[in-house]
């Protein structure tokens, strides 16, 4: 009697194993992953390097704060595209938009407005050259290593400020954290410098932008 009960359990167990082979095979995940590699026939053709997937473009968005001299600090949003020429150098185009707040004059005078609502939208674009200065791995605690590095950028562009387009020089520094082969996070600080006579005399204005961003490599 006892042996019959044992046999029933044995049959059940063997049956269960037989109907779900995946459950046992899955104990060695590496074997599963390798399967397609083993099955595939090697390509016996001439190797054409031009046909390889090239990922030299980086495209992404950014958001942060931008301080416009005399006009306060406001949110800035933008987009950027970069082309990596070598592992050291890249060229980058960036576009951003922010709004201008009120100058202290406008607030204190009670009602006087220097700019119309339309003119309070500020946009900029620039084309810059970047250099990766400290590429490598960075460590967080004992177990985490991130690929990435610091970069410096400088370039020229235009800013639509108070209805006028102004020649603008930008320079800054950023950190690129490469999360995967195709995804990176950025933290950037940039100074956008232009000259304007909007507030009376011709002056050089420094406008500091602090932003975080996300980019994809193509």
């Amino acid at each position, binding site marked *: 009697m006892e042996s019959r009960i044992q046999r029933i359990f044995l049959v059940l167990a063997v049956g269960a194993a037989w109907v779900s082979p995946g459950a046992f095979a899955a104990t060695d995940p*590496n074997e599963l992953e390798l399967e397609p590699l083993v099955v595939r026939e090697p390509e016996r053709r001439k190797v054409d390097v031009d046909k390889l*997937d090239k990922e030299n473009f980086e495209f992404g*968005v950014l*958001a942060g704060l931008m301080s416009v001299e005399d006009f306060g600090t406001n949110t800035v949003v933008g987009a950027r595209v970069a082309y990596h020429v070598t592992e050291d150098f890249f*060229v980058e185009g960036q576009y951003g938009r922010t709004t201008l707040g009120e100058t202290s004059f406008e607030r204190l005078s009670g009602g006087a407005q220097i700019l119309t609502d339309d003119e309070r939208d500020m946009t900029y674009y620039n084309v810059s050259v970047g250099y990766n200065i400290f*590429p490598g791995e960075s460590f967080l605690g004992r177990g985490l290593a991130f690929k990435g590095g610091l970069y410096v950028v400088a370039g020229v562009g235009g800013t639509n400020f108070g209805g*006028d387009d102004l020649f603008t020089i930008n320079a800054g520094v950023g950190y690129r954290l490469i999360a995967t082969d195709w995804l990176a996070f950025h933290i950037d600080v940039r100074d956008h410098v232009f000259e304007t006579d909007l507030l009376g005399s011709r002056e050089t204005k420094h406008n500091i932008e602090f932003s975080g961003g996300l980019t994809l490599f193509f």
Partner: protein
Amino acid sequence: MVGELIGYVGKGLTLALVGLFLSIPAQARLLDIFQKYQPEVVVSDPYIEMHTGPGRGYPIFYVAGQGDRIEILKQRTDWFKVRVPRGQHFKEGWVHVNQMRHTLDLEGNEIDFGEIVLGDFARRRWEMGLNGGDFGGAASITGYLGYALNEHITLQLEATQILGNFSDGLMGSANIVMYPFPQWRVSPYFTIGTGMIETKPHTTIVQAEDRTDEIVHAGIGANVYLSDRFILRMEYKRHTVLTSRDDNQEIDQWKAGFSVFF
């Protein structure tokens, strides 16, 4: 304002997540149709070094030995991402092109890892570039795209933003560029063209009107071949603005910048 910032960040993240979500199945589908080109090669040197990332700053974590078969997955700048089988597993890392040159295809032939040289400029189809300079006392920023009809003659479209102290403007033009000696490292060229210029006086200037005029120009310049696909480009142009006033206006433009060709 902080609320607004949080709103933007939230929107950005949502957009990014939606993007990621969409891109994964899209990539998988693309894979089915196109089957990415990932050829296998054999290491012919005693070893090649694999880095954790595409740059010399990333540490070497694995070395593939002579005779190992490696699969090339993709390329970024001068670095190749490769996969090397190792027992039951495999290792993935980045190898510099100088080391990839010491690999052979599966039939034992050398592989051309491609080096763009000076002579390739004469065989270009497209060239484009950005340059900046001085436009009659104002700053100018120009982008252009050119299509080579043959090694000597290129048709070119140019867009320029002019940023002055008292006015700003946009200029668009079409040019013909002639390179008499495209194979020289320092290669001179001549250009003529025509286009439109729109001038917008600054808001602080009283009683001035926007205007749009036709413009014709002739210029001379030189390309200096740097390396790979890159060119340093310097140019002088003499513009004649065909104004509606009695006299035409002559403007000198000097500029310098970088170009790439394909």
